[in-house]
């Protein structure tokens, strides 16, 4: 198990290195002088030189890469050109909205999907199964930002249960803060929950047709017992994969949903940075999100090994 975790850790490190190189080179390929690009046509020589200095554009490619990565490792993401504040501070502020939102949504999605998927699988072919599957078919097809807009129309504008957007702030208390994240989290969670419920159902049905379920039934287990004791944990393996993948969709989705609800999270930050041509900010946020995705996939790999003893030895 330890060797397995170590191997995954090595490959996690490698992925991070390669991802950072890709992101770094991407920004480096900006045609011409990045400083001139960021400042536009009317920049003076002095401001250009100052920005070049700030961007660490002096030195070779390798030196620039190392200083960028080294800075990030120390928590120094550089200074935003437009806001003149350290990027790390800006990210830290926004993170307190984006991260809770993604976790809130993932929790909702799992809480909805597991019971729905298990219920549909255990009642295969029944009206319950057909209607759950029909609903998930709709849930998968609905664009989440449109769903968010409709919820704003119904629950904020017409019913006035929620505010149409903005964030109450954590200093206002947990309840108001969570309340302002609720519609965004539902909008994010529902399509993901639909996908997850479908995966849960089909994985469970596959497992239920395995030979070892028949063995369990021959031992005297009821259908229910066989499902809960033997099928469910085996069926979880593909479901974990999807949960891992969904985290990256949730992060990306959060960027868009923040736009619908005017939430000052990482998503808003990125779009502001793009329109202000603030490449340092874009680069840092993308790197951070990629980092999160890679770490979550690592956690999923470890979770696999916890579920499946065959993986522990194979490594």
């Amino acid at each position, binding site marked *: 198990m330890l060797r397995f975790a170590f191997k995954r850790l090595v*490959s996690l490190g*490698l*992925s991070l290195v*390669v*991802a950072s190189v*890709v*992101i770094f080179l*991407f*920004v480096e*390929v*900006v045609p011409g002088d990045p400083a001139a690009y960021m400042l536009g046509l009317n920049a003076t020589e002095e401001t250009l030189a100052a920005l070049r200095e700030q961007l660490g554009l002096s030195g070779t490619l390798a030196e620039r890469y190392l200083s960028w990565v080294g800075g990030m490792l120390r928590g120094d993401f550089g200074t935003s050109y437009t806001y003149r504040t350290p990027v790390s501070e800006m990210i830290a502020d926004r993170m307190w909205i984006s991260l809770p939102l993604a976790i809130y949504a993932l929790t909702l999605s799992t809480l909805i999907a597991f019971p729905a998927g298990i219920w549909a699988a255990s009642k295969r072919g029944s009206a319950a199964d057909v209607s759950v599957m029909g609903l998930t*078919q*709709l849930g*998968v*097809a*609905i*664009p*989440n*930002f*449109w769903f968010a*807009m*409709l919820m*704003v*129309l119904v629950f904020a*504008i017409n019913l006035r249960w929620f505010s149409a957007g903005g964030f109450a702030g954590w200093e206002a208390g947990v309840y108001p803060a969570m309340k302002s994240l609720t519609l965004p989290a539902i909008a994010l969670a529902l399509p993901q929950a639909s996908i997850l419920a479908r995966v849960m159902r089909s994985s469970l049905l596959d497992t239920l047709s395995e030979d070892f379920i028949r063995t369990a039934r021959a031992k005297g287990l009821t259908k229910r017992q066989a499902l809960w004791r033997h099928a469910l944990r085996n069926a979880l393996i593909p479901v974990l994969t999807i949960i891992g*993948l969904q985290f*990256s*969709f949730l*992060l*990306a*989705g959060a*960027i*868009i949903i923040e*736009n*619908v609800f005017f939430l000052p999270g990482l998503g808003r930050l*990125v*779009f502001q*940075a*793009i329109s202000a*041509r603030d*490449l340092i900010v*874009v680069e840092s946020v*993308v790197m951070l*999100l*990629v980092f999160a*995705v*890679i770490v979550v*996939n690592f956690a999923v790999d470890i979770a696999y090994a916890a579920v499946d003893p065959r993986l522990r030895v194979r490594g």
Partner: protein
Amino acid sequence: MTETGFLGAALRSRSLVLGAVLTAVFVLAAVVSFLWVPHDVTAMDIPNRMKGPEGAHPLGTDHFGRDILSMIMVGARTSIAVAVVAVGIGMVLGVPLGLAAAARKGSLLDEVIMRGNDLVFAFPSLLIAIMITAVFGASALNAIIAIGIFNIPVFARLTRGAALSLWTRDYVMAARVAGKGATRISFEHILPNVTNLLIVQGTIQFSLGILAEAALSYVGLGAQPPLPSWGRMLADSQTMISIAPHMAIFPGLAILLTVLGLNLMGDGLRDLFDPKIRRVGR
């Protein structure tokens, strides 16, 4: 099974028929829009702005008085074109990579392809689009590239996984005994047996592509004006949602129904291609 048997089974599958009809409606709308639309989508008609659905404008007008039905028809072109090209990129690059990785399983080539895949998976298409836009500016082409890049590992993994199990079949062994090489076997024996899978996945990626294009255009990273697009119609409608909800509802429904149609078609095709399910679930 004969061809008529296949067609018969296809027609009996409710989800396949419904999905195909929905998909056909939107493809047809896109095609017809090249020849005829009810109103010119560039013509502004301020006096008639934000009109609800009525005779001359069955789906109403937007904040510039443009006909929403016409815009949805023209927008279908953008959505379909972006998604088709993106799926095409994914298939054309991903399938050969998957075939090659499977043919040389465990080799350095396989390792490089798979690790490369993992890496691309760490970049959701939205992040790729953000990076491209930050550097090169926003355009429909960006959307295509971003979604296309994300599709490559999807097809590469699917193809590799399916091909690996086919490589253990005795008919592949028989082909090797007949002196055929890995490339020839990949194209003669492996590829024909993964096409069903690729068609099913292709439909699903197509629908995901339409969703992704809409999302990118909605946040301004995709199609730019004057190119009409469903995502941007929704972005435009957002501030007007309390006064003119029809501006948000109809383009959203267009996305929903197209994606639903493609997904239903994908599910139907999968059931049809999988003889195991067909026999049981008749």
